[in-house]
């Protein structure tokens, strides 16, 4: 047990927790004012639901003793046996602290999906959806990569959750956006953001919290944490600039929403690579992420699905790029516990990364589809009644309004 590591991880865990309210503000500002509270609620409720799942059975299924590489067993149900001594995953901090750190990741992942179904999903259906999705999609994939499952054993590198969190939620978002259908008035009415300063505040909290997310994923206050901290910053800065540059060229104006969207794209892309690549590689990963995600967001309009707040374009595409880029840029010179990527003479690593990404995409795609079908049947439809959608989530789902005039 190391008190320095423990202190660092306590703070990192709290910082990752703050990302979920940050995401709530980020999404909240992007919707119309009649949906601001309902949208914020979709993130906040994950802090409740997933915390409970985690204690009851979630941690056990994700990090319990491995069953055939696919899932953890039920021996840690109710956190039975999770102690204040160091456990199998982190040798210098209390096992319970590792459990808490991982909980924060499990909380924000379903919350990310809410951006795709914004402004039109029933709260009851959403609640059931995140419960089932966390259980049947997040926990297994988390186990595959980090809990001693088959992808981890294969050698897939995912420093802080590119595959587990971003590809996974991005694909679920795509499925959900298609299955829920477009918002009323899509293509005719304007859905412009009602409060961009709120979105920017949320992006700031996300960026700040992300240092806990990435640096904390080293699980110790050491060299790798410093590396992950630094690569997170420079990749994100680079992505801000590249998103704006491409936007400026195509659209004629650099926008503030573009700046914070670029930041998010950069944060997502560097996540799997943060502790495995050099700062210069991180800059390249960020530069590509900003431009690529902007183009992915533009493509949405042509493809015709209503991923309201661009979860697919930012998290799906950014996460996929990050996972593959880790297979290109990873270097044993910066982290001996990692691997060399394609550009450092090991093309095999790129293949492994592609397998990891592909498995996550396929599994998330199929399971999310099935879960949404079931939720729709159980709750009598995923969507709000037409009249309720016009009135907005705030009033119809929560009997509140965000703003009085």
């Amino acid at each position, binding site marked *: 047990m190391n008190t320095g590591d423990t202190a660092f991880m306590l703070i990192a865990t709290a910082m990752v927790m703050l990302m979920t309210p940050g995401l709530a503000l980020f999404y909240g500002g992007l919707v119309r004012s009649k949906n601001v509270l309902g949208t914020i609620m979709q993130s906040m409720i994950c802090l409740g639901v997933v915390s409970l799942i985690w204690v009851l059975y979630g941690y056990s299924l994700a990090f319990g003793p491995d069953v055939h590489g696919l899932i953890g067993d039920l021996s840690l149900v109710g956190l039975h046996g999770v102690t204040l001594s160091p456990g199998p995953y982190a040798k210098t901090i209390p096992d319970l602290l590792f459990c808490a750190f991982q909980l924060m990741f499990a909380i924000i992942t379903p919350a990310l999906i809410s951006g795709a179904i914004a402004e039109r999903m029933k709260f009851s259906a959403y609640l059931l959806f995140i419960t089932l999705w966390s259980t049947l999609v997040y926990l297994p994939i988390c186990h595959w990569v980090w809990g001693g499952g088959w992808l981890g054993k294969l050698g897939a590198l995912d420093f802080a959750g590119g595959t587990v969190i971003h590809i996974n939620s991005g694909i679920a978002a795509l499925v959900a956006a298609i299955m829920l259908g477009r918002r009323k008035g899509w293509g005719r009415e304007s859905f*412009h953001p009602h409060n961009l300063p709120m979105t920017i505040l949320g992006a700031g909290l996300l960026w700040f919290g992300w240092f806990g997310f990435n640096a904390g994923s080293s699980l110790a206050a050491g060299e790798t944490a410093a590396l992950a901290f630094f690569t997170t910053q420079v990749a994100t800065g680079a992505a801000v600039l590249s998103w704006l540059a491409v936007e400026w060229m195509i*659209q004629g104006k650099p926008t503030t929403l573009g700046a914070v969207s670029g930041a998010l794209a950069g944060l997502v892309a560097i996540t799997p690579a943060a502790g495995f690549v050099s700062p210069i590689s991180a800059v390249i990963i960020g530069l590509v992420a900003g431009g690529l995600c*902007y183009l992915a967001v533009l493509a949405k309009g042509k493809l015709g699905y209503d991923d309201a707040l661009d979860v697919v374009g930012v998290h799906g595409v950014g996460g996929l790029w990050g996972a593959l880029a880790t297979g290109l840029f990873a270097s044993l010179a910066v982290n001996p516990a990692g691997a060399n990527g394609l550009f450092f003479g090991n093309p095999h690593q790129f293949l492994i990364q592609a397998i990891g990404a592909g498995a996550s995409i396929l599994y998330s795609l199929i399971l999310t589809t099935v879960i949404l079908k079931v939720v729709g049947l159980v709750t009598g439809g995923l969507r709000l009644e037409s009249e309720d959608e016009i009135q907005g989530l705030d009033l119809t789902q929560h009997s509140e309004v965000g703003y009085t005039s």
Partner: protein
Amino acid sequence: MKKIEAIIKPSALEAVKDALNARGVNGMTISEVKGHGRQKGHTEIYRGAEYVVDFIPKIKIELVVASADAEPVADCIRKAANSGKIGDGKIFVLPVEEVLRIRTGERGETAI
């Protein structure tokens, strides 16, 4: 008595208010309104999606003056709000039948 309704650019409000105060006009009501005339709207871009915004923010000033003052006050507003560009707004002058001061019950021009 006449009522003057002026729709102006929000940015012109300070100048108009100062000009009216300098003329001794001692009351006015303003509201934030949206609309368009020949200026039409503008385009906003969010993550690559372009929206044409038809109604743009304006300020409406309402004040009531004695009939003889209507012409010079309207002119005063026009001069202060004039930037020479499209979208500066419009001024309407309407007849007013009666004015009551609620506190005292005074009527007519003395109540303005």
